[in-house]
């Protein structure tokens, strides 16, 4: 058994790409092997080459790509010797692959049933007379309800989760021996992610298939894989059974990666690599921020109960001294019965009746249906929920980028909800509420340098006209967020993701706002970069005395950064309260499901 021949054996693989700047090695001397029935996880951040490796195995590299060296042996056959025609036989029948973004992975103008039939017919898995039945069977096996109906559906008629199931059905239709899943759940909600991964594991186990799961999410790898391979910049740095690698990671990169992954039982500082110090911006890092000692403002509730606060709560308490003391005065932000409706379409009821449509369908769509919450000064509140829950709409309304339908938004005593969004840009209150966007690339004007982007609020609202003063202030801000001053004259396409995020943060804090709304600011960042940015955000909050509304789908991150959390679903608030209480002992079933769906690394 221990000397069984592996199903797939990749030895010394090197892949090169011809680019404008010459040959680039995306993957270098990589050794990977997987046995029959095994689930292997390949973990790495962007640029690690994890996807390229699998593309090389399937031989679907881009035109510019080339296997420069190494061998790939599948089931005893050296894939380097195989002709393209034979390779096509192998693809789909012996080795299958599923990708990210399931809806785009399906032909938009072809019925999904037909797409499955194409694969079945190609690999001679069914005669023409029986192929439709087999296709419907394939749909049933991936737990799609009403498979006979769904056979006739087009991808745009299906939800993302259903599309991914169809893609899985396509991949498994011919019962391949190996399934390669390249970030199959990125972009899916956490509950959908769990459902899809459970399905994949169940189907592969019941057929004794091997699976390669390529992901950046350590938790996912830990929960679903037997063995894990860690890649960094095109090479394998560590490969070991799952339990071993999570219990005792050997390589420093693996350790750094694990440390940086938000999980239970740690504080923000613990995300950073052990030898790094907090951002140089802070004049004198308080020992409290490292989690040493119990500062004032520790959770009174926990103290009265006689328990020690959790490390997370401790760290948070240190970072928001006022939060635990109860509201010292009126809240900074008070949202009262906030509603946002969108009309479904522009037809009037009468016309709709004329065309035989049900007039009830024409009722407006309620994105946000009457919510109430407050944010105290210096407090950090998390707003969580899955897609479509209304959290983004809520944050947009609080930001005054869109208008509410009804309700009240009171900020610092002023009713800002009454001012139309179009006019808000030139109000005095504008500089006191700012935002850090999810997609840093999208939020920066491609024609502005970093300095110009940061200077924008200073010019418009800060009244600084003098070029020298402006530049000085930009440099100050850059230093505060840990952005090297030399990068200020670069354009966004010349900056990395983390650097762009910092520019966005510098711009947001330029005018010393009281409230900053952070809309998934680290969702698009690598986990190690995320660790640094989250710490930066926490430090800035203390330093500048700001409040945060942190919108996210990632409960682990929210637990680290936020004192209180609000859980939304379908435009309503399902639950709200202190982070630890809500996340450790949720009252509502929905929150419970949400938490249960998060794959936890066993650390």
């Amino acid at each position: 058994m221990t000397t069984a021949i592996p199903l797939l054996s990749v030895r010394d693989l090197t892949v090169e790409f011809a680019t404008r700047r010459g040959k680039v090695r995306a993957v270098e001397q990589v050794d990977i092997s997987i046995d029959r029935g095994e689930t292997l996880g390949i973990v790495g951040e962007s640029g690690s080459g994890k996807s390229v490796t699998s593309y090389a195995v399937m031989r679907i590299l881009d035109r510019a790509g080339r296997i420069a060296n190494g061998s790939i042996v599948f089931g005893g056959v050296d894939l380097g010797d195989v002709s393209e025609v034979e390779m096509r036989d192998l693809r789909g029948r012996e080795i299958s692959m599923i990708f990210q973004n399931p809806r785009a992975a399906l032909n938009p103008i072809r019925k999904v049933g037909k797409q499955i039939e194409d694969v079945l017919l190609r690999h001679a898995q069914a005669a023409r007379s029986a192929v439709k039945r087999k296709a419907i069977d394939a749909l049933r096996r991936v737990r799609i309800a009403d498979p006979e109906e769904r056979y006739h559906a087009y991808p745009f008629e299906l939800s993302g989760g259903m599309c991914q199931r169809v893609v899985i059905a396509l991949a498994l239709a011919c019962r391949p021996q190996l399934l390669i899943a390249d970030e199959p759940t990125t972009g899916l909600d956490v509950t959908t992610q769990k459902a899809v991964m459970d399905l994949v594991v169940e189907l592969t186990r019941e057929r004794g298939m091997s699976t390669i799961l390529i992901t950046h999410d350590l938790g996912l790898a830990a929960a679903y894989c037997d063995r894990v391979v860690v890649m960094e910049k095109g090479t394998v740095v560590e490969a070991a059974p799952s339990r071993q690698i999570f219990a005792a990671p050997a390589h420093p990169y693996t350790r750094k990666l694990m440390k940086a992954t938000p999980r239970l039982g740690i504080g923000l500082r613990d995300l950073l690599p052990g030898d790094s110090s907090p951002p140089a911006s802070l004049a004198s890092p308080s020992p409290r921020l490292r989690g040493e000692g119990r500062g004032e403002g520790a959770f009174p509730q926990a103290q009265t109960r006689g328990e020690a606060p959790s490390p997370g709560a401790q760290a948070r308490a240190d970072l928001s001294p006022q939060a635990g003391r109860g509201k010292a005065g009126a809240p900074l932000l008070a949202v009262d019965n906030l509603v946002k409706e969108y009309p479904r379409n522009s037809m009037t009821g009468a016309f709709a009746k004329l065309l035989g449509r049900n007039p009830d369908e024409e009722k407006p769509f309620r994105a946000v249906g009457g919510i109430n919450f407050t944010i105290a000064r210096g407090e950090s509140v998390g707003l969580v929920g899955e897609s479509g829950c209304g959290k983004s709409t809520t944050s947009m309304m609080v930001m005054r980028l869109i208008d509410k339908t009804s309700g009240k938004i009171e900020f610092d005593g002023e009713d800002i909800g009454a001012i139309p969004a179009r006019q808000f840009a030139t109000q005095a209150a504008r500089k006191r509420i700012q935002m850090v966007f999810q997609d840093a690339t999208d939020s920066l004007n491609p024609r502005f340098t970093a300095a110009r982007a940061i200077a924008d609020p200073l010019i418009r609202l800060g009244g600084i006209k003098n070029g020298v003063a402006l530049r000085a202030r930009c440099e100050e801000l850059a230093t505060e967020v840990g952005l090297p001053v030399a990068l200020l004259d670069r354009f966004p396409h010349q900056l990395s993701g983390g650097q762009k995020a910092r520019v966005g943060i510098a711009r947001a804090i330029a005018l010393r706002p009281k409230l900053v709304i952070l809309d998934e600011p680290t969702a698009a960042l690598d986990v190690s970069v995320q660790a640094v940015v989250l710490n930066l955000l926490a430090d800035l909050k203390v330093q500048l005395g700001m409040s945060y509304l942190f919108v996210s789908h990632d409960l682990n991150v929210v637990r680290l950064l936020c004192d209180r959390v609000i859980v939304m679903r379908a435009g309503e608030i399902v639950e709200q309260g202190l982070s630890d209480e809500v996340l450790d002992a949720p009252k509502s079933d929905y929150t419970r499901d949400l938490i249960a769906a998060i794959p936890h690394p066993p650390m």
Partner: protein
Amino acid sequence: MSVLSDDRGQMSDDGRQMSDVGSLVANDSPAAGSSFSDLRPLTSDFRPLTSDIRPQTSVLHHAVYVIGENPVTGFAFALFLLIAVCAIFGPLVAPYDPLASDTAAAYQSPSAAHWFGTDQLGRDIMSRVITATRLDLAIAVFSVALVLLLGGVSGVMAGFFGGWTDRIVGRLADTIMAFPLFVLAMGIVAALGNTVTNIVIATAIINFPLYARVARAEANVRRHAGFVQAARLTGNSEMRIVLTQILPNVMPIMVVQMSLTMGYAILNAAGLSFIGLGVRPPTAEWGIMVAEGAAEMVSGKWWIAFFPGAALMISVFCFNLLGDGLRDIVDPQRRT
């Protein structure tokens, strides 16, 4: 973009689902309105490298690189310079007076004395061709400038503000587009009269929908972009956003469009002249010269129509190549 940044393994700089198609057709994605939304919006599909300090490349560097890589673009630039020289210095360079007729020397085929031969009135064709460069180019430049101003500005407003502006501009563009464009130009020039000004106006009018649509599409895409939202947060009023954020981003695409339309404008003016709706004789203009030579061509005197026609073709070809080259510089994802 760093090669390694798109970790899905598709290392192509230009393959990321951006289509040439989008700019010409300007369709809104029908699937975007799907009501199933358990997919988190994937604003960025990939995770950028944590630390890559790339060397800076200015626009000039990039331009030189593109030209170097694609010698055809370089050739187009050279050709453009030649045409510009002819336009500017034309009358000085031409060996003969383009209007001087010499019936004794009529119908001479190309020779040492007359490189392009003479026409039915004994005028030197080469001089006429060179002189005509100025007129044809001027017509093209003015009509393109005019339509950029009218179409570009209204398109940006329509795309950014939406609402009634969008509806009005859309209706205007649709009404013009309802006509086969050359036919409309014919109608306009027929109604207004045969002058160069009217040709310029007619050409501008028939190009209006294209410019308005391209400008509208570009402004519309950016209307919801993050940096526009961010600009609102930093205190920019809507008009200021249009001027400082939207226009500079839209301009490069409009410049590409201008270069491509120059060729079309020249062809349009020549076509109108060919059927007698353009410049009046004895003015030297390529289209009219081809018309004058058309009858003779079938009886063997090919040079009268050939050289002006070739001049037309070469200039339009040059502008098209230039437009393609500019498009490569500005937006490599839309390479043809």
